[in-house]
């Protein structure tokens, strides 16, 4: 019994030592205008536009964060928006960011967008990378070894302002975490690093702040933290 308590205490100590918080980096933000009353937004997953995947989980996660921070936010579901603009928002026909003006020159597209009271098209991009060390062996004597490392999720939002055609401003956040796994016969330690959720929540919160007109706060945070403090 005493041994079991001792092992539990050691495991707890090791866990506490490895626990990592999630830091957020703000890379760039400029030129955003406040969302006026009645105006709406839509979020489009970048993978959709590139035609590489139909996965919309990241965009939905950011949207959830935005809606929980701004319950009255007017949002057009991305599939509905894409269907409304068919066939001009498909991977085959979508113009690069710089040619958004060209897309809106089509009177049918401009008319459809105007009817939606749409102000911003927000393109969401994201990826996660892991850097790990250690090794684990599986055998009749159980599972032996240890793994530890860093996990980074980076997400970016590019905002197309449909009232102010020009270079699209972007917001870029990064969440980091450390994970650890150790096993002697049976696993004694497992600390996951979940970074996608915090990154998309942070991105969603920041987007809401900017769209509410909190651009002064945005500018200050760039000056004070151009590169990434990792919060524990």
């Amino acid at each position, binding site marked *: 019994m005493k041994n079991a308590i001792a092992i539990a205490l050691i495991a707890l100590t090791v866990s506490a030592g490895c626990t990592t918080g999630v830091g957020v980096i703000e890379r760039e933000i400029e030129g955003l205008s406040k969302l006026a009353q009645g105006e709406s937004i839509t979020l489009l997953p970048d993978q959709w536009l590139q035609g590489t*995947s*139909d*996965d919309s989980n990241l965009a939905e996660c950011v949207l959830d964060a935005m809606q929980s921070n701004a319950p009255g936010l007017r949002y057009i579901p991305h599939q509905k928006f*894409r*269907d*409304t*603009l*068919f*066939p*001009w928002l*498909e991977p*085959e*026909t979508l*113009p690069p960011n710089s*040619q958004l003006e*060209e*897309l*809106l*020159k*089509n*009177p*049918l*597209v401009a008319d*459809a967008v105007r009817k939606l009271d749409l102000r911003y098209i927000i393109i969401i991009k994201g990826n996660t990378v892991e850097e790990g060390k250690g090794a684990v062996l599986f055998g009749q004597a159980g599972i032996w070894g240890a793994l530890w490392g860093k996990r980074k999720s980076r997400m970016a939002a590019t905002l197309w302002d449909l009232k102010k055609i020009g270079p699209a401003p972007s917001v870029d956040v990064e969440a980091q975490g450390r994970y650890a796994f150790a096993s002697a016969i049976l696993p004694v330690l497992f600390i996951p690093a979940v970074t996608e959720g915090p990154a998309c929540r942070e991105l969603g919160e920041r987007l809401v702040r900017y769209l509410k007109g909190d651009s002064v706060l945005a500018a200050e945070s760039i000056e004070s933290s151009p590169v990434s403090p990792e919060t524990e």
Partner: protein
Amino acid sequence: MLPKVSHWYPTMRLKRVGIFLAALALSSLPGGCTYTVPIDPTLPRRPLVERLPVMVGVHYSEDFRSFEYRTRYDLYSPFDHTYRFPLGAASVALFDQILASLFEEVKPVDHLPPLSPKKPEISAVIQPKISAVSAEKLDLRSVTIEYEIGIYAPDGAKVASWKVEGFGRSDMELSLIKTIAGDATQKAMRDVGTRVLSSFFQDPDVKAWFDKAGATSRTRAP
């Protein structure tokens, strides 16, 4: 005397079960199963292209209407499974939507031009054909369909002909293979719809023909 009966009964029962199982396995071996892939070719309502104020004819040949693509799939099974893609009916529905979005009026015609002089109002006849189909062998998650679109003048002269390829890949998880294949096919058809709707009048021969036919092409590609 009684023990004889009790020995005989379970032996016979086991034999019968064995024969039944063997027959079941044998009957499954040569046949496998055939699954029909569900395809919904519906495009979004009212695509954002302007319709030309002309009447065109459309001819769907019998081969086109009844076209089927079949592929075998046996990755996780000792038996062959055949997947049947009823592309003919879906393609008719797809081109009905595409042409109705491009032209004010579309009339089905039962043969290629030359047309009867009773139909002078038809500017041209359009005939789609399926020229190639392929599906990813591993899991039928990707589908490519190639159509050849021919445009004929009412007197039978060929105005233009070009190929359009549509590709679709499904990201569905935990679904039946036929459902995944249907999703990929639907995306390939949407891709075809996008390409035809956005570029139909960009072909110089087609544009020249319809300009000559009295219509001004107002469809703009952004």
